[in-house]
């Protein structure tokens, strides 16, 4: 008896072969999108903004209306930009793994996330029988709310900031720690051992990495002498922090990035939802819209951490030719892409490695950098 000879599968087109025409087409499309975006951006100041002035004056003169409009704007932005970020993440993952990513819904799969959001909205709302119902229901909102609040102080331009809080950095630190309350509630509420372990890990991780992150941010505060995020950007007029004060700011930025990854629960720090050991950690039991809230919070935090890095180290909204918010967006998306690059390159750490790395290396290193910055400022001041 003889087996039929092995036959190679017919070569399929993945788009990653070196087909010059294909690559040229992709490049041309990219350039066209970029040119269109820049044209649209430069047309923005020429629009008849005067027509909306009365509305703006009305909003500006009523504190309560003002606050509501700002809160609504921030909420809408946070919800909508995540749709784009999730699409970008999938495309990026596809690119890193030599596949195409979503391609079918909309142009290059651009509407895939919208379709997914609709699907999540329509799914059955499942609460496990023995779950702690109240905590289970509240947890997704507890996780999402702090992230939403942080966007209130993120300066997109000198004027595009919902609330220019003079203690902006402290506010950010205070609010982001509260995410761990939501993960604890989710981990406990589901009454599932994987959830509980994931929740406990997430909480321990966020609390530990908060410390070196805060000290790294404190170095920037010492350098600039202010905690206001807009002031910090304005002080970088003569040069980005990471260039102008490179000896201390490059290590500070590296510590900030590592801690940021840990706070975002992204690989290599995705231990709270490690699929291979914990199913999916604290949101194992969640589905439908509640699950979507966790996802929303996670991706929004991604954009926020990138935006904070840009504000602290890369001159925020500053840049030539283009309007300030566009520059802020470009830089932030670049840092988000860096997060994605790391996520799809590096494997996961073990729990003991994660804790040891934070307490034995990052905390002392951040304190050394903080002292170095303080000495530098004192020497420059005298």
């Amino acid at each position, binding site marked *: 008896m003889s087996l039929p000879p092995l036959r190679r599968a017919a070569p399929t087109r993945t788009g990653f072969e070196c087909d010059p025409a294909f690559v040229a087409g992709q490049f041309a499309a990219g350039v066209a999108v970029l040119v269109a975006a820049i044209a649209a951006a430069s047309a923005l100041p020429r629009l008849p903004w005067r027509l909306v002035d009365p509305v703006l004056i009305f909003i500006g003169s009523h504190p309560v209306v003002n606050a509501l409009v700002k809160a609504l704007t921030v909420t809408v932005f946070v919800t909508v930009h995540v749709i784009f970020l999730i699409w970008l993440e999938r495309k990026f993952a596809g690119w890193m793994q030599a596949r195409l990513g979503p391609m079918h819904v909309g142009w290059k799969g651009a509407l895939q996330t919208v379709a997914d959001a609709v699907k999540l909205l329509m799914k059955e709302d499942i609460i496990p029988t023995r779950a*702690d119902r109240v905590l289970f229901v*509240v947890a997704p909102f507890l996780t999402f709310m702090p992230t939403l609040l942080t966007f209130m102080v993120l300066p997109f331009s000198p004027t595009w900031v919902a609330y220019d809080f003079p203690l902006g950095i402290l506010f950010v630190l*205070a609010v982001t720690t509260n995410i*761990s309350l939501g993960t604890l509630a989710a981990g406990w509420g589901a009454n599932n051992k994987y959830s*509980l372990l994931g929740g406990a890990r997430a909480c321990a991780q966020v*609390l530990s990495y908060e410390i070196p992150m805060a000290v790294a941010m404190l170095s920037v505060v010492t350098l600039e002498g202010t905690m206001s995020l807009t002031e910090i950007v304005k002080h970088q007029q003569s040069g980005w922090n990471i260039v102008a004060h490179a000896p201390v700011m490059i290590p500070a930025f590296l510590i900030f990035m590592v801690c940021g990854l840990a706070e975002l629960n992204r690989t290599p720090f995705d231990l709270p939802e490690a699929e291979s050991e914990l199913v999916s950690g604290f949101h194992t039991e969640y589905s439908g819209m509640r699950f979507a809230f966790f996802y929303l919070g996670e991706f929004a935090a991604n954009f926020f951490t990138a935006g904070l890095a840009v504000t602290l180290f890369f001159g925020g909204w500053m840049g030539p030719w283009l309007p300030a918010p566009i520059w802020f967006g470009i830089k932030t998306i670049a840092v988000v892409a860096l997060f994605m690059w790391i996520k799809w390159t590096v494997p996961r750490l073990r729990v003991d490695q994660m804790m040891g790395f934070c307490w034995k290396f990052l905390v002392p290193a951040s304190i050394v950098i903080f002292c170095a910055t303080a000495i530098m400022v004192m020497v420059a001041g005298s």
Partner: protein
Amino acid sequence: MSSLTILGAFLSLAVLTLFPAVMVISTRNILHAGFWLLPTLIGVAGLYAMLDAHFFVVAQVLIYIGAILVLILFALMLTRDVMNPRAPQHNRLVTAAVPTCASMAALSALLLARHPWPTGQPEAAAGAHDQTVALGRALIGTYALPFEAASVLLLAALVGAIVLAKAPQTEPPSAERIDCTGGEK
């Protein structure tokens, strides 16, 4: 802002602080009691905000919610034995605790009643930046010694916690599963 807006803000913050505070001591599920602390502490932060104490708003959220509340919940989750909703809610020390609390309450009430509350238009508070600078100077200048003493106290607590955690366990922790619905349906 008009005085009506301020009154409305104050009343809603007071409700936000007091209602969950009552829930904290009345709920049977000790973990729920921990989570009820969250709105109470946020309400206190809001009251600080109404007093233009910017730094305290953020410090309240950072320390009380971000650190202390999270640690309380963490500790509760690790010691599941105390979470049995059928356990009695008062302990053996109730006879000593009631007079202590009553005398504390009476003393506080006396102090509050004697305090000359300023009425009329208060002068504008300093900006958040100036307030923070002044507080920082006070903490490492005038009040450096009490500040450091507090640090030593916290350090002692930390060392004590490590010693307790390192102590050999006499009996293994019970793995009995507890119904965390709190007995309510």
